[in-house]
């Protein structure tokens, strides 16, 4: 049976280091399995957050060899034999202990989004819509809130703009609401002001790491940016609106 060295972050935000663990690995094992073995052996106090071990709860986000990943979906065999593997907490969030970070800023960002409000029901039993028109919103509904995109986004990770920019995951959520055919809420002002969509410089790292393969930048953020342009940066549209309003008033 093969052995692998794992370099795992141990400690808090203020004080910690990468600790080496020599782990016995078998074919098919994922990185989270190795973490379990470390817990079962040398370090029962190694802190890690996980839940489903099936890539669906979004709890086990961390960084493996410096890349944001779900540890339960990352096979050890993906990394070259004989090389050590580093496992570190998500860099964009404050470390609580070892691999566990404080992700509460994401929940705060979520709360700022104007909630979904559907139009009145089309019939007694609900609404009528076609599959082709819900496709756009459905792509966004795949989000498992793992925060890997929030972690990799340089606006949050390198520039620390957690208060100014809601982050890619919440652009996805806004798109899920706004692109829903029966939604009635206007979120454009939110996007520009509180959501801070202008902070995103569309460098697409969020799209690269999303385990649900949501095309975050192209299908959520850029279309939402275009909506903001419609309202705030398009002089012709502004003129048309002005004329219409003038017509109505006059």
């Amino acid at each position, binding site marked *: 049976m093969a052995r692998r060295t794992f370099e795992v972050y141990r400690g808090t935000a203020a*004080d910690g280091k*990468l600790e080496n663990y020599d782990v016995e690995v078998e074919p098919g094992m994922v990185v989270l399995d190795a973490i379990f073995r470390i817990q079962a052996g040398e370090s029962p106090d190694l802190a890690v957050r996980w839940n489903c071990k099936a890539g669906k709860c979004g709890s086990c986000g961390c960084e493996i*060899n410096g890349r944001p990943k779900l540890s339960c979906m990352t096979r050890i065999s993906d990394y070259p034999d004989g090389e050590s593997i580093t496992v570190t907490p998500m860099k964009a969030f404050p470390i609580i202990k070892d691999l566990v970070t404080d992700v509460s800023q994401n929940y705060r960002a979520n709360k700022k989004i104007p909630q979904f409000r559907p139009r009145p029901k089309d019939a007694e039993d609900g609404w009528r819509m076609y599959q082709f028109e819900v496709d756009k919103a459905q792509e966004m509904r795949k989000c498992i809130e793992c925060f890997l995109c929030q972690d990799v986004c340089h606006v949050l990770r390198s520039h620390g703009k957690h208060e100014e920019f809601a982050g890619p995951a919440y652009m996805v959520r806004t798109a899920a609401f706004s692109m829903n055919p029966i939604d009635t809420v206007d979120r454009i002002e939110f996007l520009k002001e509180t959501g801070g969509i202008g902070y*995103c410089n569309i460098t*697409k790292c969020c799209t690269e790491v999303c385990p649900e393969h949501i095309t975050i930048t192209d299908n959520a953020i850029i279309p939402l940016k275009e*909506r903001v*342009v419609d309202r705030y940066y398009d002089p012709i549209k502004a003129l048309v609106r002005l004329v219409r309003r003038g017509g109505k008033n006059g």
Partner: protein
Amino acid sequence: MESSAAVHERGLGKTLRRDRWWVPPLSVALGLSLCGAYATWAVLQGNYYFAEQFHYLSPFYSPCITASCPEDIRLFGIGWWPLSPAILMMGVILGFRGTCYYYRKAYYRAYFMDPPACAVGEPWGEGYKGETVFPMIIQNLHRYFLYASVVVWLFLTYDTVMAFFPHGQFGMGLGSLVLLVNLFLLSGYLFGCHSLRHIIGGNVDCYSCAFGGKARHGAWKRASWFNKRHMGFAWFSLVFVCLTDLYIRLVSMGTITDFRLF
């Protein structure tokens, strides 16, 4: 690595990634710089952009709107412009590509290192404002460059047709095919534009409620096909437009002769 520094460190190039993350930004910087340098040089030349015999016009010089343009292709004939006619049109092309959502990603990463690659540290800190303030806020005008580019694209289409009908008669050479491929690639790039995709149907949420909703959904779907391949079209069309200019330049200089098929 033994210290916590590996986890907490910030700054250019700081990362725990072990792959060659610097290869893509470096390649993009090289590619953009090379194409940019050639295009600038070609645009400043102001000569050898039209092979009159076969009616091949370099895409950098289309439409040719100053008085110095050869009679066959002259439009407006603007007299007060003393420099190369291509410089005027370059504003449109540069504006379109420069504010394109794909190229923004490419040069923000490759030139501005903001960020150089995913999960890699960058030189900038908390002063970052993204596209919320001047000058980057100008990126929001992309759709205006799109409108102008559609007009230029119509001229390119006309030029390509003319390359098959020099002096009113059908004729075809390698140059005609070069111009055709160039048009195909530029069209692919244009049709995949995010702003276009938004305007023709992306801005609709309830297609069954909107006027012409089904048709707009169809148009949006088609634009989405090109949009998925926008990066590819951006690169191929950029390189090929330079090659097209080079080919026409060499033909009009007499350095090479056009291979005639018909």
